[in-house]
């Protein structure tokens, strides 16, 4: 159970991650704003509550591993790693520029703290299964977390991997689906119907949990519940809003990968600052 004090700290952390994200992505260049903002609370709950992760020690064997199968949201992971001291705050603005450690999609050979090469969608759960099988072989206690996009569930390999996790009873693995309802060109249900998403995962042999993916208290409770289940993998369907936290980005697929103007960035930072103020009041 998460205490009220922990919750306040986590909420502030989520605001900080959002501010870092906006400053990192900035104006004038296309970035994956929508899907990065929708998973801020999910990654905050993982890195700063659920996961065993020693700050500044990304190579420690005992660490829990987080894989972003939706690799385009890696700026959110960078923001978390910067908050943890794994990345340097001063390198955050170098995102996606030549020579930067902060590549456009996760490159495990360039960036400390990343656990899997992803970007081309649909591959992260299989890779996570490999890490989970290795942990079991080694008798290691660490856990594997993998974040999937909902649009990404169009990829057939996700379902091959879902069969594998269930077949091998990988209860050291938790998947989280960032269910923001939008993919690059439109609504998931309009592009190719995804629902019943819960029924699909259940039919594949998974323990399925659902929660509001922006409610940190609910996220932490659901993650605790998922990791307590033995004998089968758990998936948390986290219902989110694409572009969450910035009014003019929320719920708009047009900002899946787009550029903001300097004015829009200023407005976004203003809104987030206002929210911080409200929270601390």
């Amino acid at each position, binding site marked *: 159970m998460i205490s009220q004090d922990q919750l306040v700290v986590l909420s502030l952390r989520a605001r900080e991650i959002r501010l870092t994200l906006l400053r990192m992505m900035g104006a004038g260049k296309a970035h994956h704003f929508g899907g990065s903002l929708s998973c801020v609370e999910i990654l905050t709950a993982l890195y700063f509550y659920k996961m065993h992760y020693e700050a500044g020690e990304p190579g420690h064997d005992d660490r829990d591993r987080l894989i972003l199968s939706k690799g385009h949201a890696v700026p959110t992971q960078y923001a978390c790693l910067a908050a943890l001291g794994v990345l340097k705050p001063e390198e955050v603005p170098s995102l996606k520029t030549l020579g930067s450690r902060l590549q456009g999609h996760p*490159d495990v*050979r360039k960036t400390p703290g990343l656990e899997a090469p992803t970007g081309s969608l649909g*591959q992260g759960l299989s890779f996570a299964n*490999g890490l989970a099988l290795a942990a079991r072989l080694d008798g290691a206690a660490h856990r594997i977390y993998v974040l999937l996009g909902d649009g990404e569930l169009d990829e057939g390999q996700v379902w*091959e991997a879902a*069969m594998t996790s269930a077949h091998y009873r990988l209860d050291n693995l938790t998947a989280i689906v960032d269910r923001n309802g939008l993919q690059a060109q439109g609504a998931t249900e309009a592009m190719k119907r995804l629902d019943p998403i819960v029924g699909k995962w259940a039919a594949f042999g998974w323990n399925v949990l659902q929660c509001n993916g922006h409610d940190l208290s609910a996220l932490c409770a659901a993650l605790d519940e998922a990791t307590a289940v033995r004998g089968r993998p758990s998936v948390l369907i986290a219902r989110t809003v694409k572009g969450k936290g910035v009014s003019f980005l929320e719920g708009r697929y047009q900002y899946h990968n787009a550029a903001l103007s300097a004015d829009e960035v200023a407005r976004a930072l203003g809104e987030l600052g206002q929210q911080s103020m409200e929270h601390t009041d």
Partner: protein
Amino acid sequence: MSVTAKEATRDAYGRALARLGGVEPRIVVLDADLFRSTRTSLFAERFPDRFFEMGIAEQDMVSTAAGLAMAGKIAFANSFAVFITGRAFDQVRQQVALPALNVRLCGSSAGLTLGADGATHQSVVDVALMRSLPNMTVIVPCDGSETERVVEASLKHQGPIYLRLSRYETPAWTSGIRDFAIGKAICLREGRDITIAACGVIMGEALAAADLLAEKGISAEVLDVHTIKPLDTDTILASAAKTGRVLTIEEHSIIGGLGSAVCEAIAERADRHVPVRRLGIRDTFGESGTADELLEVHGLTAPHIAREAESLLRAGSVPDA
């Protein structure tokens, strides 16, 4: 094993894997519903905890193998060559080659010598696909003896390997060879007049062609270029400098395989004009037939190779620098 006893490289592979599993605990093996054919069944029987059946899901298998390798394992992923390189190409590209992980992609029943199953199952571009990927090492052993050495050497190798295996039975041409190293071509027969650079299980045809040429007083050097990437350019150029001409032999498309690699090396690095001819599959798909029938149809038997060599020799004296 004597030179005359025949064996398929897939059998030697399965045996080596099961043997080495006992000495290298980091080995894990994955298969996609073909373990009896790929011969990983031997490993599965001895080390069931380290064998993972992935079902008919090559993409999932390759990504899972990458995850295991990321966690420090040496992951041998197995399927037919056509599937593991084609079906799972993007997984190999993003999750194996890009992070340079210790995955061994073992493509079994490769090439035309797969035989009767036909074009859908005959991999004729697998080497080209794998060779194009940064960080990837590509090895095409010619017999069982060499295959065992490749598997042994692969345990000390850093980075991904594509290993092309066959169901075609061949004598152990390399059983008498003492030194084996990934990336170092082997001279199986010395000669003066022409270099025959070959790889894979049709090595016997290249050696038999050299015999036919010898009967006509032509001295052919036969190189076993088991590693297509990185190519042993030094050995190939030294042989070409001696003989003046090169004929490449492969059970693969002439586009992107050994022939292409040799042409690229000679075009860029030879210090004089060296004519090259490529024998292989000439930009077509395969078809059903026995292995030997298909090799005959595609001009990959000893008499065809010898005729091509003679034609290359007749093509005129090589203009010297």
